[in-house]
């Protein structure tokens, strides 16, 4: 009676593992006085075949460029990366050339300014973290390159969250969207320190970033109406891309590898059955 025992044991261990995975909810850095749970959004990059919506991600870049870039750097992104989200080589060149960068020394030993090229990084608004903090009431605006990966949010662990959404840090994106649309009047009696704004979703509710998005704050060239939620959605989509630029390639390759392995494993199983058929 060997078979049932093994099967039951396997089942027991798998159940135990599932239960423990559900319960392994390491509280993250942002658990303290976390606000309501960010609402789950239907991002196009979710799921096994997810991709970044090109139009949305490009509008998101525009929001970043015209609004967020005043305070937030995007250090891990170079202009040439923009080709991944559908900009042509000429467009990338033109976008880069809007900014200057210090280069040198030249043959005379002097530093000089020149236009940025596609291989240059995006410009930082502040020379260093100290300057960034000084300009923002003591709180430096964080670099946004990895922000959707760096926020699982709300005391919810990545493990628990991804059980619900396999396919990436969607909840990080959900949180960013919620944060950008989560400003409201502080409740009566709430003591707001100077320079702070009340945000439902920010841990502790006092955030040093004033509401960055206002209705019609940017003008989208594709005619999309620039509501706050539209801009928040688009810029979050853009930031999800900056955090995981490999996502599309990863999922595409993943599907192929899974299919290949499935076939291979099936063949190995058939072979195993055949080789073992004379053993009892």
């Amino acid at each position, binding site marked *: *009676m*060997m078979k049932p*025992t*093994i099967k039951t*044991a396997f089942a*027991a*261990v798998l159940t*135990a593992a599932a*239960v*423990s995975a559900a*319960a*392994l*909810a*390491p*509280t*993250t*850095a942002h*658990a*303290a006085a976390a606000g309501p749970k960010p609402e789950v959004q239907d991002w196009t990059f979710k799921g*096994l075949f997810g991709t970044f919506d090109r139009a949305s991600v490009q509008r998101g870049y525009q929001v970043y460029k015209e609004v967020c870039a005043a305070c937030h750097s995007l250090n*891990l992104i170079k202009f040439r*990366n923009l080709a991944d989200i559908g900009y042509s080589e000429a467009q990338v060149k033109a976008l880069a050339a809007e900014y200057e960068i210090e280069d040198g020394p030249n043959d005379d030993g002097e530093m000089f300014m020149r236009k940025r090229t596609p291989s240059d990084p995006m410009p930082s608004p502040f020379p260093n973290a100290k300057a960034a903090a000084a300009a923002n009431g003591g709180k430096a605006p*964080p670099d946004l*390159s*990895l922000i959707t990966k*760096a*926020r*699982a*949010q709300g005391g919810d*662990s*990545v*493990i628990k969250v*991804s059980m619900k959404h*396999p*396919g*990436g*840090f969607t909840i990080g994106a959900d949180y960013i969207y919620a944060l950008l649309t989560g400003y409201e009047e502080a409740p009566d009696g709430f003591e707001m320190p100077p320079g702070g704004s009340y945000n439902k979703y920010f841990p502790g509710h006092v955030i040093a970033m004033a509401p960055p998005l206002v209705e019609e704050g940017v003008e989208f060239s594709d005619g999309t109406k620039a509501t706050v939620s539209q801009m928040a959605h688009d810029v979050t989509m853009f930031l999800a891309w900056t*955090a995981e*630029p*490999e996502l599309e*390639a*990863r*999922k595409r*390759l*993943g*599907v192929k*590898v*899974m299919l290949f*392995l*499935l076939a*291979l*494993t099936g063949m*190995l*199983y058939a*072979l*195993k059955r055949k*080789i*073992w058929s004379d*053993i*009892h």
Partner: protein
Amino acid sequence: MSEQQPTSKFMQNGVVKWIEHRMPIFSFIDHSVGSGYPAPKNLNYWWNFGSLAGLALIIMIVSGIVLVMHYTPHTTLAFNSVERIMRDVNGGWLIRYLHMNGASFFFIAVYIHIFRGLYFGSYKYPRELLWIIGVLILLAMMATAFMGYVLPWGQMSYWGATVITNLFSAIPVVGESLVTLLWGGFVVDNPTLNRFFSLHYLLPFVILGLVIMHIWALHTFGSNNPTGVDVKGPQDTIPFHPYFTIKDLYGMGVFMLIFLFFVFFAPNYFGEADNYIPADSLATPPHIVPEWYFLPSYAILRAFTNEFILYWPVSWLMTAKLAGVIAMFGSIILLALIPWLDTSKVRSARYRPVYKWFFWIFVLDWIVLGMVGAHPAEGIWVVLGQVATTYYFAHLLLILPILGVLERPLATPESISASVTQPAE
């Protein structure tokens, strides 16, 4: 290299014969994993996890070596160098995610492998040394994974390293100097990162050496089997090749399917969001949690507070912190003594009706410890952690020795082949 009996076609080949005469490597391979190695014919799928752990080790070493080609072990560059691997190195994200998730899957395979040994009594005579080497492998893996996690130099890397290395300061007299030695200074900083990098490269090869010894010891008496009864003759065994080579390959296929699903579709499932924030010595995350595979040990460490019963007997001698550190390391090291703590003569839990229950309770206890380790030490989790820790040690130090004396085992079969014809349970 299909059939490698000394008389096989392969062995008749001139080149093969030339080499074999000077260095009998082909018969060595044949006796290790070929048709010349007899294995019990009744091994079940739990016996797949050894080869899976081996596969995981190879994946770790290969992906690790490639990572090192692009990684920079310096506090100001490490974080960004890992992101460069993710973004600019061709296929870099794949290598990095293989390594990151490979560590988790290595531990999954090894933990199941260990529990398999506990269930079927694989640690008993004559396999005690084999088992002890296994415990050493586990310790070396833990050290390796801990130091590897520091390398990307994110917030959890930094604060995890700070919390864990600080534990050693609890050791009387030498504690402080030991911590200074680990750190290479008076805080966790660049020298710490550098020595961890160096050791993280070294230790996997120590593990490889231990694995070779592990397999050497294994092949001296051969595998245990689900009945726990010794092999009595050739009717009980089948050649390793092709029977177990194909079974192991099939197992590897299944393992890779699950492993790669995570790599491609949920690569940060086992990770912490905070490790995507660069290390900052001025901003402490409110909750510092280790990687999941350390959670049971972490729970045991934190169970030791001044109120904990197990601490009382030693409270005149040491601080609760030191007691916790000793218990944490002790909980692993004690595993090496199980061959002597378990007094039963019967190997397999299949014929130990009472032990079988205690085995599953022990598994459950370990899972509870893992859950406790994941939660902040507050409220119910404190009590639960202390109860589970007490039970962990009670299982090893009381239940195993006493049960072996009191339990009436079922009749074990004459031999492996006899067990196949007559019902086992």
